């Protein structure tokens, strides 16, 4: 329990320290993020991979409203906690080459967001979950709106209002559940135990699903995303795509499926249909994108669509695939955005047509970029494959046509990713790219870590799968059991 | 005097209510149709008086003096309001040389 509290509040304390640290914010925040990572790894090592909730903290908070500080980690949580703690140091490191104005605020916000994210990923109290959900949103809004690019104010406002719209409806659902709960508290287990009729479950499903769908985002709730990703500073984009997006997925797994299984059962068709439409739709759009960042943004929509479809297929493969893919997508997309950031930092453009031939002048970048691209297109042996394979299998168990259409992602993904890679890295160098210098220092460190993760997870994903297996199985049993008792 | 009033009794309470409502509404119409701040203010006084009358009627009807005490308070208010209101109007007049309420529409939207 102490470990968990430390895990959640260390970044918060770090944020406060960083906020007052002036010029040395970079270093301090890095140290704190690394300590958090160490703590998370330590916890992961001492984690017993069964279905139980561990490191549980259950403290009274606002007793009158039935709100407790109830948090704990099971296999599913552990995975996303790890993801968060791995990516935050990477993201902080990736910012080293930038000299952002107000660095202390910048890094403090990142650490603050980390706390919020960890709260989301560990909370077992719906109210706490909601608090974390919003607490993670505010910092990223400020990061994107303060250090972002062109038209950032309008775009981020849209993003903010859009996501908060979803979350407010989720709040509606949470309150409703609270009132339904005879114990009048927000405890997740009490919510699991509720018996709601299918009408209630139906609208609760939508109240939650829209919040999560906007966060992920799933077609047609995605239109905030490409603009925001493009306009945000790269670290903001990484936070958004690497971690924040997983909040939506995690929410579906943790809060949607077990609480309203009947609703999920009734509406899974729609959810999967939307997800799959999103896959194809976003992939097709990605074909002709001119801005590399926007292209990756659309690719992210496609990938998330697959994850969501895999989850709603409600089987072990899909769910496990979603778990792995959450981590993989986080790592890959951060890598992609980082490479684009490196290019942007040097050449001040992410326009695909302006680039070309960078491989000639920056062979190391070309190689790591290729590995990341391959991870993204799910080449066997990379982390992307494990997730996508399991997801497609999960979707396949749901329906062969769904899998066939969702599977288009492996073709389309290759098309747009390689098209981008070719136009950016290959071909002849032009006047702009001739001056390009290869990666160095922290850039190398970050990219090598990412590449190592891509390959190691691709070759030996077993620890990861093992970590989540029992929890996922338990969750599915829970869902199925509830479905059976209702019917 | 007591004799006289005893003789005059027998008016249904309803009619007092109607009378008050009508006078009250006349006051409202005055507020609605006039532009002169003072006349509007006078219409408001009309409304207050309608209320006073009704209160007294209720007071008599339920044989309870508190209604009439309340009228007293209303009169006190009316006095205070008139003092403040008229000084506001005077103040406005000093600045705008008008007590037409339509002149005052800088603050809008």
């Amino acid at each position, binding site marked *: 329990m102490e470990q968990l509290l430390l895990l959640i509040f260390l970044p918060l304390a770090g944020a406060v320290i960083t906020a007052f640290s002036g010029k040395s914010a970079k270093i301090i925040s890095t140290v704190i993020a690394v300590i958090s990572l160490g703590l998370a790894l330590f916890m992961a090592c001492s984690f017993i991979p069964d279905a139980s909730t561990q490191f549980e903290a259950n403290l009274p908070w606002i007793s009158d409203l039935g709100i407790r500080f109830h948090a704990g980690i099971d296999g599913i949580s552990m995975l996303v906690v790890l993801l968060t703690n791995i990516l935050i140091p990477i993201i902080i490191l990736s910012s080293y080459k930038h000299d952002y104005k107000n660095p202390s605020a910048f890094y403090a916000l990142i650490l603050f967001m980390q706390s919020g994210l960890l709260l989301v990923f560990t909370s077992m109290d719906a109210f706490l979950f909601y608090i974390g959900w919003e607490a993670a949103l505010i910092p990223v809004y400020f990061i994107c709106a303060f250090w972002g690019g062109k038209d950032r104010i309008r775009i981020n406002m849209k993003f903010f209002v859009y996501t908060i719209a979803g979350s407010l409806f989720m709040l509606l659902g949470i309150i409703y559940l609270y009132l339904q709960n005879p114990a009048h508290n927000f405890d997740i287990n009490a919510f699991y135990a509720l018996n709601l009729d299918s009408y209630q479950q139906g609208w609760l499903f939508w109240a939650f699903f829209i919040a999560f769908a906007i966060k992920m985002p799933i077609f047609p709730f995605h239109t905030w995303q490409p603009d925001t990703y493009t306009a945000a500073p790269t670290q903001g984009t990484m936070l958004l795509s690497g971690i924040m997006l997983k909040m939506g997925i995690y929410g579906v797994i943790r809060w949607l499926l077990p609480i309203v299984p009947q609703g999920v059962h009734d509406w899974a068709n729609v959810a999967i249909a939307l997800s799959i439409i999103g896959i194809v739709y976003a992939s097709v759009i990605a074909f002709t994108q001119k801005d590399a960042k926007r292209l990756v943004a659309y690719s992210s929509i496609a990938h998330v669509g697959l994850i969501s479809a895999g989850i709603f297929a409600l089987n072990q493969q899909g769910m496990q695939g979603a778990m792995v893919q959450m981590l993989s997508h986080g790592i890959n997309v951060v890598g992609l955005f980082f490479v684009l950031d490196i290019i942007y930092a040097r050449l001040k453009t992410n326009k695909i047509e302006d680039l070309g031939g960078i491989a000639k002048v920056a062979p190391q970048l070309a190689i790591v970029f290729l590995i990341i691209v391959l991870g993204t297109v799910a080449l066997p042996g990379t982390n992307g494959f494990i997730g996508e394979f399991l997801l497609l299998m999960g979707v396949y168990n749901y329906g062969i046509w769904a899998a066939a259409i969702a599977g288009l992602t492996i073709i389309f993904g290759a098309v747009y990713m390689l098209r981008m890679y070719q136009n950016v890295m290959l071909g002849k160098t032009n006047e702009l790219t001739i001056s390009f210098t290869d990666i160095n220092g922290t850039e190398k460190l970050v990219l090598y870590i990412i590449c190592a993760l891509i390959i190691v997870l691709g070759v030996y994903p077993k620890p990861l799968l093992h970590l989540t297996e029992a929890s996922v199985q338990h969750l599915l049993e829970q869902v199925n059991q509830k479905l059976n008792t209702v019917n | 005097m007591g004799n006289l009033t005893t003789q005059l009794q027998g008016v249904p309470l309803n009619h007092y209510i109607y009378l008050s409502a009508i006078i009250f509404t006349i006051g409202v119409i005055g507020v609605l149709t006039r532009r002169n701040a003072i006349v509007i203010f006078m219409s408001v006084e009309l409304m207050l008086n309608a209320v006073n009358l009704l209160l007294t009627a209720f007071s008599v009807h339920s044989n309870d003096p508190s209604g009439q005490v309340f009228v007293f308070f209303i009169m006190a208010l009316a006095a205070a309001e008139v003092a403040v209101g008229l000084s506001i109007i005077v103040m406005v*007049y000093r600045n705008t040389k008008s007590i037409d309420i339509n002149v005052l529409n800088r603050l809008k939207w």
Partner: protein
Amino acid sequence: MGTQVFYFVATLSIIFSLMVIFAKNPIHSVLYLILTFFTFTVHYVLLNAQFLAVVNFIVYMGAIMVLFLFVLMLLNLNKETEPSKSPLIKIVGVIAGCCLVVTLIGSLKAATISSPLILKNPGLGLVENLGKELFGPFLLPFELSSLLLLAAMVGAVLLSKKDEVEA
């Protein structure tokens, strides 16, 4: 016979109050208002609320109306300076008023309190009676009314006096 007096006075009240709001000249309005108040005094007498009748006479007709007149004269607004509202607005205003009276009376219509007003205690409206009430249960609001009057006084002085500093 007795009730006819009420209806007669009531009709006068209504007519005079209508004159108040429809008189073009504000001075006339004030004068009509005084008349209206006078009819109200009569009503109070009829209701055996002698104290109120006296207070109404003194405070309203005496003090308040004089104040109105005084201000009107002070501002030299005795002419028909008011650029009257467009007829449309007037008509709409009157219609709205009629609607209000209809709805008010309509909502009160349900009130079938047609029981005639019987004076149970002839001394109800006497000073003695009211004084006991005022300095008994209503002592607190009565005392606190002084705050109201004081505030009004301070305010009236504050607003009316010429302020040299603020220029």
